C-alpha cells in the first residue's frame, strides 16, 4: 500500500478482519458481533519498528494477536517473509512460530511461576527442537547476558525477580528461537518509568545488533515517538492514520490523532491550548455492531452529516502518509510551529 514493492517488506497484512460473537440483541434478535479489527492493512519493513497506538478497545492488541496467529481471524491475509501464514495449520504453523514471537504487557502473568528462569528461556528451544541439549544450555546463558541478567538468574523462580527483570526474562524467551519479528504488546506499560527506559534501551540495542523487526503497541505517544519508525493510529478496529514517525509528529492529520497528541503534550500553555481545541470528550463507544459511518463520529468535533453515513477509507495525503477522514483539507490542523 504505502511501500514500494521493491522495499524489503517482512510483514504484509492485508485487510485483516477479526470479529467476535457477542450474543444476540434481545431473545430473537440478530446475533451481534464485536468488530475488534475491521479491515486493517499495513506493511512492516525488515529491521524497523512499526508502532500501533490507540486507546483500549481500539483493536491494537487483537491485531497483534491475530498476526501472531494466537487468535482465529475472520478474514484477511498475513504475508510473512513471502508466505501467507494465515493459511498455515498444525505442524507447519507450530514451526513457523519460531520466526515471530510476542512480549506481553504483564510479566507477572506471562511467566509460569513454578518454573525456573533458565527453563522458561529454554522452553521455546525444546518445543521447536532447536539445537542439542548442551547447545541449548549455552544459548540460555547467552540470552541471559544479552538481556542484562547474571548467569545465576537461570536458577531462580519468577517471583524472585523484580518487574523489570521479569520483562527481561520475557524478552530473552522471545529472542530464544532467533525470530525475525517480535511483537511488543504494551511491553513497557506496566513498568516504572526508570525501568521503562531500561527496557526500551535494551530493545533498541537488540534491534541494532540483530536487525530485529518490531511491532510496538502502546498507548503512550511519547514512547511511540521515541521508539518507532512508522506509526498507525487505531480507533475502534480501524487504522485512522498511518505515516512515517517524522511525518506523523510534524503534521498529524486525523482529529483523533490530534486528540491523542493534546492529551500527551508536555505541560505548559501549549498543552492547555491543544486540550481546549482538540481533546475529545467521553469514552470510546462500544465496538459491538458499529454504525455505518466513521467510527470516530460521536466524539469528533468536526463531524458533518457525511461522516455519519459513510465510512472513510485510508487515503494518501502525502508521501507514505495516509488518513481516513472525510474532512481532510477542510479542517485546520493544530499549528505546532506557532504554539
Amino acid at each position, binding site marked *: 500500500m504505502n511501500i514500494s514493492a521493491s522495499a524489503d517488506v517482512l510483514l504484509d497484512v492485508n485487510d485483516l478482519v477479526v470479529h467476535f460473537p457477542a450474543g444476540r440483541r434481545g431473545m430473537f434478535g440478530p446475533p451481534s458481533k464485536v468488530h475488534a479489527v475491521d479491515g486493517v492493512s499495513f506493511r512492516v519493513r525488515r529491521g524497523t519498528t512499526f508502532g500501533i497506538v490507540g486507546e483500549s478497545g481500539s483493536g491494537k492488541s487483537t491485531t497483534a494477536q491475530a498476526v501472531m496467529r494466537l487468535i482465529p481471524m475472520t478474514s484477511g491475509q498475513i504475508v510473512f517473509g513471502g508466505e501467507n501464514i494465515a493459511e498455515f495449520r498444525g505442524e507447519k504453523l507450530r514451526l513457523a512460530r519460531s520466526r515471530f514471537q510476542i512480549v506481553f504487557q504483564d510479566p507477572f502473568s506471562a511467566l509460569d511461576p513454578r518454573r525456573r528462569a533458565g527453563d522458561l528461556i529454554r522452553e521455546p528451544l525444546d518445543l521447536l527442537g532447536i539445537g542439542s541439549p548442551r547447545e541449548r544450555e549455552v544459548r540460555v546463558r547467552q540470552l541471559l547476558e544479552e538481556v542484562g541478567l547474571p548467569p545465576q538468574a537461570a536458577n531462580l523462580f519468577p517471583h524472585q525477580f523484580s518487574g*523489570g527483570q521479569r520483562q527481561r526474562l520475557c524478552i530473552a524467551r522471545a529472542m530464544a528461537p532467533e525470530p525475525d519479528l517480535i511483537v511488543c504488546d504494551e511491553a513497557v506499560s506496566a513498568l516504572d*518509568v*526508570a525501568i521503562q527506559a531500561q527496557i526500551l534501551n535494551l530493545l533498541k540495542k537488540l534491534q541494532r545488533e540483530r536487525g530485529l523487526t518490531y511491532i510496538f503497541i502502546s498507548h503512550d*505517544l*511519547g514512547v511511540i*515517538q521515541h521508539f518507532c519508525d512508522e506509526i498507525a493510529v487505531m480507533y475502534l478496529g480501524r487504522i485512522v492514520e498511518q505515516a512515517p514517525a517524522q511525518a506523523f509528529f510534524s503534521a498529524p492529520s486525523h482529529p483523533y490523532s490530534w486528540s491523542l*497528541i493534546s492529551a500527551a503534550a508536555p505541560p505548559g500553555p*501549549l498543552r492547555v491550548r491543544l486540550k481546549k481545541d482538540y*481533546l475529545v470528550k467521553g469514552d470510546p463507544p462500544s465496538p459491538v455492531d458499529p454504525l455505518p459511518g466513521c467510527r470516530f463520529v460521536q466524539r469528533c468535533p468536526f463531524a458533518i452529516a457525511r461522516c455519519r453515513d459513510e465510512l472513510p477509507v485510508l487515503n494518501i495525503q502525502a508521501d507514505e502518509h495516509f488518513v481516513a477522514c472525510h474532512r481532510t483539507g477542510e479542517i485546520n490542523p493544530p499549528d505546532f510551529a506557532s504554539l
Partner: protein
Amino acid sequence: MPPVLSVKDLSVSMNGTKGMVPVLEHLSFDVAQGKTMALVGESGCGKSMTALAIMQLLPEDFRVTSGSILLDGVEVLSASPKELRSLRGNKMSMIFQEPMTALNPLYTVGNQIGEVLRQRRGLSRRDAHAQAIQFLKAVQIPAADKRVDAYPHQLSGGMRQRVMIAMALACKPKLLIADEPTTALDVTVQAQIFDLLSELQDDTDTAIVLITHDLGAVAELADDVAVLYAGRCIEQGAADEIIAHARHPYTRGLMACVPHLQLGRAIDHLAAALDEIPGMVPPLGARGPDCAFLPRCAFASEICRAQPQPPLDRINAGAAVSCWRHQEIAPGAMA
C-alpha cells in the same frame, strides 16, 4: 490559616519475619486548603503507604512507629475507631487507582454515592438519591438521571472513576487523597479526569494529596511535591521549583528517563538512547543508613559512601534536598 493536613516526622514499619522493617521514614509535609501536594516516586517508595497511614487503613502488619498526622487540627493517629469513622468521608476521603475493584458490583452507583450521604449526613433514601444525581452531574457524567441507576459494570473505566470522585467528594471533605487516579485509564480520559479534579478543587477548595509517578501530572496539578525514594523523602518543595531546578540525581533521573512527546519536530530516535537509571529500588529490609540511592547514582562519591544519608536540607524558600553533592550536581539551580 493552619494547614488542612499536617504530617510530621511520619514513619511506618512492617512487622516482618525479621522484626520491624522500615517502610517509610520521617516524612513531613503540610497541605493547605485548596492546594495540591504530590507524592512522587517509583513503586516501593512508600507513596501509597503514606496515603493509607493518613486514612488509617494500613494493612495488618504495618504500623506507624513515629510522628503525627493532624487533619484539620485532629490527631488522626490517636483517634478512636468511632472518631475515624466520622473523619473518613466527612473530613477526608480517598480515590483509588482501579475504580472497578473499588466499587461494589452488586449496588447501583446511585446507591453507593447515596450511602455516604445517608451514613454521614443522615439524608433519607429519596434525598440521597436526588443528591447523587446532582453529584453525577458535577463530575460531568452525561444522562446522570439514568446513569444513577446503572451498576458499575455498565459504565466505562473513565465513568467509574468519575463515580469514585463523586463518592469521595459527596460530603465535601477537607482532604482528598488520590492514589494514582488515572493510571488505569486511557490517555484521553486521563486528561479529562485531571481537568475535572482541578475544576472541582477550584469550586470546593479541597486540599488534595496526589500520588503519582507521572511528573507531567505534577507539573499540571500540584502546588508542592515530595519525591520519595525507598521510603525516604529525598527532595521536597514547590512544584514549579522542583520541575524547573531538580537537584537530587534521582529526581533528575526520573525526569530525564521519560520520553517526552516532541511536537512539530522529529527526533533522531535511532541515535538517541533514553537516559536510564540503572538498577532498581532496594527491597524492604535492605535499606541501611547510607543514601538509599547510592548504588544507582551516577554522582556517588567518597562522601556519599562514608556518611549516612543527609537530612532534607532546605536550600531556599521553595526547595529542600537530601543529597551530599547537590551543589556540584546542580550549581545553576542555587538560590
